[in-house]
């Protein structure tokens, strides 16, 4: 299980820039970013290599929460993603949000938000998938 960050933000020019500036200042590497909006406001979600430091950097200037997510290592080839979603479907687990990115070694990391993270984690591990813990995740996605 890893932690991603969710930031409440008004939908105005400069709001996203403020977030990226704080992360850059803290020397945190962000690997995925997702903004969902309701018109005048929204929630920005980011996946970073060091969530604790990113949280500290952002907490000083906004409303930010840590939310749990799954980081699953999959082979970076056609069908790699499908194997994971198929396993979750068989267990009737609903995926609320998903993103992913390639890492070195011909692999990709898939970020999944589900209602019951620990249960989904057990299930995927039992099915033989590599589910990353926070430290492994930092190592795998950390900047140079």
């Amino acid at each position: 299980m890893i932690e991603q960050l969710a930031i409440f933000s008004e939908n105005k020019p400069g709001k996203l820039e403020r977030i990226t500036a704080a992360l850059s200042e803290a020397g945190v590497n962000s690997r995925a970013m997702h903004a969902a909006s309701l018109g005048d406001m929204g929630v920005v979600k980011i996946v970073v290599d060091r969530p604790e430091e990113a949280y500290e950097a952002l907490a000083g200037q906004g409303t930010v929460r840590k939310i749990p997510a799954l980081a699953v290592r999959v082979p970076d080839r056609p069908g790699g993603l499908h194997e994971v979603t198929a396993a979750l479907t068989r267990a009737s687990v609903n995926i609320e949000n998903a993103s992913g990115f390639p890492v070195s070694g011909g692999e990709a990391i898939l970020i999944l938000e589900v209602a019951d993270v620990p249960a989904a984690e057990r299930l995927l591990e039992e099915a033989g998938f590599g589910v990353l813990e926070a430290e492994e995740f930092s190592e795998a996605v950390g900047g140079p």
Partner: protein
Amino acid sequence: MALEDLYDPTEALNPEALERLQTDRLRWTVAQAARSPHYGKLFAERGLDPESIRELDDLRHFPLTEKQDLRDSYPFGFLAVPKDEVVRLHHSSGTTGTATAVCHTAGDVERWADLVARCLHMVGLRRGDVFQNMMSYGLFTGGLGLHYGAEKLGAFVIPMGAGNSRRQIEFMGIFGTTAMHIIPSYAMALLGTCEEMGVEPRSLPLRFAVGGAEPYSEGTRTRLQEAWGIPFHNCYGLSEMCGPGVAFECPVQQGLHLWEDAYLGEVIDPETGDRVVDGEEGELVLTSLTREAMPLIRYRTRDLTSFTPGPCPCGRTHRRLSRIQGRTDDMFIVRGVNIFPLQIERVLMSMPQVGRNYVIVLDREGYADRLTVRVELNADVFFGELEQLQSLRERMADRLRREIMVRPRIELVEPGTIPRQEGKAVRVIDERKD
């Protein structure tokens, strides 16, 4: 109530004796008022004679005095003493029209200080207390009014005035402030300053606060009391009647005792001018009973309140006013519906998801009025999902619609982003161009 606990035995005077005192003072006040150009002319025109007052009810024959009368007679039309007997001027800001000027004799200032001392004594201020007064000094009555009363009790008074938030908190620590006098919305804003400075408000040596100068909801009071860890006592007053200290809340916190030996109160229907029964809301009308420089007869305060029926458990016999529900001046109209800002505040402050500040914005969409309530989100309740914000916004709009009959647009904004005022909060921004 044991008499020795009272600052002044008059606070627990039996109703008959209180009425006799009021009747004598009313007769004196009407005679005194007749010396002013405004009332002298009015009484002569209407054939009103101060000697005709035999009982309190005779006051009914006198017309109401409006704020506009004060403006029309600006600056000295209500002055009932020679100008060289005046030692103090207070003056309204004039934000809602022409300004009003209020003059005081040395006796007025002395009696005012004594009433304020009575108020502060009632909630526990004594010699040895450190009283930090965060109201503006100067023409506004909030600063000097409480200052004199607190000094009279022998308290250690810090005349901070409003603003300079970090210094306010620093002084509390350095000088060991035990009581503060503060505008409620500013007390809310100072919590943010405490957070920035890493100061836990509950760890300060404060024992109680006096909140005044603007109407606020019971929900806001509850939040302030929890966050600061002390009781907030409500203070009511208006510059036309000296200033703060006209009515004040005792520790029971069920209404504000109107000091009836100094002010005669009536609650009327603002439309018809008829008196309403105790418990029913209306506009507060006051007659000063001891003012020398500018006595006012049946003055319409524009403040909405009601008399709380029944005696107060504290034992004081002076009748209580309910929490001020707003000013007739504050009311605004959206699509033909009358709305008071405090109705909106009541709903918002009952919701834990709401943060510390809000503002009401009125503008037009085409030809139709549009009501927007901009609300700071409480950071503690955000759990990171857009759906939560969406449903919160819906729920706020629904609950407000039930209260004010208009469904407002809700804008959720980040904590601390609505500009704070150091004086009275600006709750309504009206951008409608007529």
